[in-house]
């Protein structure tokens, strides 16, 4: 694995490999000293053009637990617009001598551009509405750990909410369906992508009709701006029509689990008490996130060195 840009690059085998290695790092995370020297001497840069404290911290924690050196380059897009081009910024950072760059950007495709410009490994930590592959990997891992089926094959996953603007949804649809799950998107038409041509999903506008048949309900974050863009009459109406209220949560089968990429808007897409039900695995997602990112960093920077030394006996 040279770069991790899209879940699609991994394929089924790649996802399975990440899952397998993640098991080892979950164990590492549970040790009294949860740190291994595997990436000693490697330098990993977080290049975040968009604020995301959670994702940045998760990657940094993962890197530090692998004993990598970490650098942080955070910029608000506005301050960069007037200055140097994206390419110049990236080349400047690479000149400092780095092994991997974790890229987050509000624009789709930036990690692909960066990967074309640098020799370092590039990890997509979220590009615009497009993809967030490590989130999808940790979601797959969480489902395999937390759902009694211990596998995604044959599971029915409902992804509920703002699919249109969601990089999480795009990566999750790819990953879940690759691993054999059925996916139903539940959203108002204004929050679905303009075209679902080629997406292996079903669509519903009736959450109540979908919930009794799902194994996993995955809620997406609903952002307040959507009201002002005339995509929704109001958050209140969204909650009334699509929110996972306590009453709706009762429609779920006994072993169904509830997921959310965070941060949650309690009372909007998910009722406060539903988020705290035993079937809610939202905090497990966060915990698994570190182990999954350790696995990704390890696989990219350690498992398969670019030049393999000849076995000398």
């Amino acid at each position, binding site marked *: 694995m040279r770069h991790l840009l899209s879940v699609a690059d991994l394929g089924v085998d790649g996802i399975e490999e990440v899952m*397998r*290695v993640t*098991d*080892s790092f*979950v*164990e*590492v995370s549970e*040790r*009294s*000293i*949860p*740190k*291994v*020297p*595997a*990436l000693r001497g*490697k330098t990993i840069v977080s290049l975040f053009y968009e604020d995301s404290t959670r994702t940045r911290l998760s990657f940094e924690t993962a890197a530090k637990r*692998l004993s990598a050196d970490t650098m942080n380059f955070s910029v608000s897009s506005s301050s960069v617009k007037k200055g140097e081009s994206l390419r110049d910024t990236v080349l400047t950072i690479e000149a400092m001598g780095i092994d991997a760059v974790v890229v987050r950007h509000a624009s789709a495709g930036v990690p692909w551009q960066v990967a074309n410009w640098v020799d370092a490994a590039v990890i997509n930590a979220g590009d615009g509405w497009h993809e967030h592959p490590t989130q999808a990997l940790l979601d797959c891992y969480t489902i395999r750990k937390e759902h009694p089926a211990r596998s995604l094959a044959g599971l029915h996953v409902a992804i509920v909410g703002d699919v249109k603007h969601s990089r999480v949804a795009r990566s999750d649809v790819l990953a879940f369906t690759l691993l054999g799950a059925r996916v139903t998107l539940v959203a108002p038409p204004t929050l679905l992508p303009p075209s679902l041509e080629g997406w292996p999903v079903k669509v519903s506008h009736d959450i109540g009709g979908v919930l009794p048949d799902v194994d996993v309900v995955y809620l997406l974050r609903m952002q307040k701006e959507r009201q002002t863009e005339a995509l929704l009459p109001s958050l209140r109406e969204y909650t009334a029509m699509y929110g996972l209220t306590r009453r709706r949560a009762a429609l779920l089968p006994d072993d169904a689990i509830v997921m959310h990429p965070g941060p949650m808007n309690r009372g909007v897409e998910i009722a406060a008490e539903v988020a705290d039900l035993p079937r809610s695995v939202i905090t497990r997602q966060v915990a698994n996130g570190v182990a999954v990112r350790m696995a990704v960093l*390890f696989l990219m*920077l*350690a*498992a*398969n*060195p670019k030049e*393999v*030394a000849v*076995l000398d*006996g």
Partner: protein
Amino acid sequence: MAERERAAAPPYGGVFIPRKQVMDADDLQRAIWRIGHEIVERNHGVTDVVLVGLQTGGVPIAHRLAEALQAVTEEVVPVGSLDVVFYRDDIGIRPVMPEAVTEIPWDLDHRTVVLVDDVLFTGRTIRAALDALQAYGRPRSVQLAVIVDRGHRELPIRPDYVGKNLPTRRNEAVDVRDDGVWLGEVTKEARR
């Protein structure tokens, strides 16, 4: 097989071709029994002794050793497993992949840890294992039990319990199986 050989064995390529059997199944069982007795003798019993098998070859040996210890002392000796992959000094030089999940579900403070492996070769795996153990506490002592010591050490490490000292050439390989110990070679042509 020693870690260095395993790096060349499947799934990374290479196949072990056995050439000569150096211990049969009975020899192997006798060696395990003897090592068990030596552990009891050295530690005046097995109180506070834990066995940690090194993934993957050392793990089945550790379990067999625990059976032997239980037969001698009528005490159950805990067995853990340790994958040293994240501590190896050849990360970034060769392909490395976790073999299995480490399981050391106890605090090692004040315990006697017996590391168990099938073959002792360069000593680098043991060096990594000593590093790894630190994450689980501060053992009173760490001892090393191996079925075969084949020489060619590259680090100042020596075993406390040895099943068989086996002189080898560097390019040979040693494989410990249920049915005994074999000397052979790892072919290189299938390497990636």
